[in-house]
Every structure is written in structure tokens, then in C-alpha cells.
């Protein structure tokens, strides 16, 4: 991925990798693919991945983005890691509810709540 600007802002604190999106809308397939690859690299590099993905800058996403999140979830689960989602706009949260992905993902209203929930 030489030369491509990261689509993520990543900060590691207390063993938890905090991830925010650079883009306000996670729709573009090229961006979604890059996001997936970047997060996959983070997971691979961590023997005990604890990821918090914040949607605080996101006002739109697509089913392809949901698919990438599911893939991330599956990768973390395979490593017995932990994943939390936080700061999801109500309209986007509705997408998770309709697809019942609110039952698959551990979703918190705030980053603080999500961070407190990590084992």
C-alpha cells in the first residue's frame, strides 16, 4: 500500500487500539477495501487484539462497509481478541439494527463506555 494515505487515525493506549475513520462516509469501495486491509494488519500484528472502532466522524456507510466490519470481527474472534464499536450516529445504528448486526457487535454509545468494557 506504498504511497496511499491512511483512511484511519490509530492510537494505542492501555493495550487498546483506538481507531477512527478519516472519511465522513464509508461508502467508496476502494476506501472500504483499504480500511479492511489496514485494520487486518493491525490485528495481525497484535497477539491479543483489543480494538475500539469509533464512528464519531461517520455520517454514512454501505452494506459493503458492514461486510468489512464483519470480516474484522471474524478475524479478531479467530485470535480470541475483543472488538468494540462506539459513537455510532442514530441513523447508522438503525442500519445495524435492521441487519441484526447490533446483536453481533458489541456496540457502545461512547468510547469511554466501550473502553471500560474490555476484559
Amino acid at each position, binding site marked *: 500500500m506504498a504511497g496511499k494515505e491512511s483512511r484511519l487515525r490509530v492510537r494505542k493506549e492501555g493495550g487498546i487500539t483506538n481507531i477512527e475513520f478519516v472519511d465522513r462516509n464509508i461508502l*467508496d*469501495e476502494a476506501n472500504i477495501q483499504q480500511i479492511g486491509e489496514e485494520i487486518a494488519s493491525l490485528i495481525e500484528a497484535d497477539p491479543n487484539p483489543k480494538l475500539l472502532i469509533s464512528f464519531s466522524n461517520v455520517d454514512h456507510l*454501505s*452494506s459493503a462497509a458492514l461486510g*468489512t466490519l*464483519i470480516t474484522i470481527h*471474524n478475524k479478531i474472534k479467530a485470535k480470541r481478541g475483543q472488538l468494540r464499536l462506539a459513537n455510532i450516529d442514530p441513523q447508522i445504528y438503525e442500519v445495524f439494527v*435492521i*441487519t441484526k448486526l447490533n446483536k453481533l457487535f458489541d456496540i457502545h454509545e461512547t468510547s469511554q463506555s466501550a473502553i471500560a468494557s474490555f476484559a
Partner: protein
Amino acid sequence: MPEANPPRNEACVTLDEDTSLYRRIEAEILAALERAEFPKEAIFAVRLALEEAVTNALRHGAAGLPNPRVTLSWRVEPTRVTIVVEDPGPGFNPDAVPDPTAPDRIHLPSGRGIMLMRAFMTRVEFTPPGNRVIMTLDRPSASQPHQRTM
């Protein structure tokens, strides 16, 4: 001096895999919705359903064709927005698409597009053989929030 490209409330365009063209058309549709003062929830719904329909048409309907192209028609009226997406493929049976919320499918990364289209638009109709979808969204009234079809 006349405006070079006056804002449109309807159009019919041909899309290919060039996402920048799609984004320009999407922006045009959303701008028309904003001019017509559709609420932000409706604009969100149209944006999502439109993305899903076009992605499905290009990725599935036009897949395998040498120059995949789909036709997108749209019209914004005071109380309704209509979007039609058509691909040159053989079609499919939308009723045969598996339920993506089923326990054995919830972990799969794909298969949610049609569900989201139906959830967020007022009406979604596939014209046989299934390579044309007509989606409408009626402006929600103040006393009756947007009723979703599930």
C-alpha cells in the same frame, strides 16, 4: 447569462465502474432532495438505497460483461423520489435471496443490500426477470414518520 448546468430534478444516465461519475450523480440527486426540503432521514435513506442498488447492478447484474454499464433514472418530486436502476444482465429472483439475518448467514460479509433497500425505501419493486428495480420514497408527513417496509 444562463447557468451552465442548471440543477435538475430528474435525469437518466449511464453508469460504469467509474466511481467518480457515480459520486457526481449521487451528489446531484441529494442536492435535488435538499432543494425539495426532504428531511435528512429521507436523504440518508435514498443515499443508502441508491448505493446498494447501483452496486448490485454493477457487481451482479452486469458482472462478466466486457464493459459493465447500468442505467440510472431518477426523479425528485415535491412528495416523492423515484429511482430506477437497470442492468443488462439476465436478472434474478429477488425473493430467493437468503435472509442475511439468519444465524448461519449473519457472519457472512455480503447479502444485505436488498434488505437495506427494502427497509429504507417506501417501495421496492423488481421488474421480471429482475434486472430492473424501481424504488420510491414518499416524503414522510409531520404526523406520520416514514413507514419502512421490512
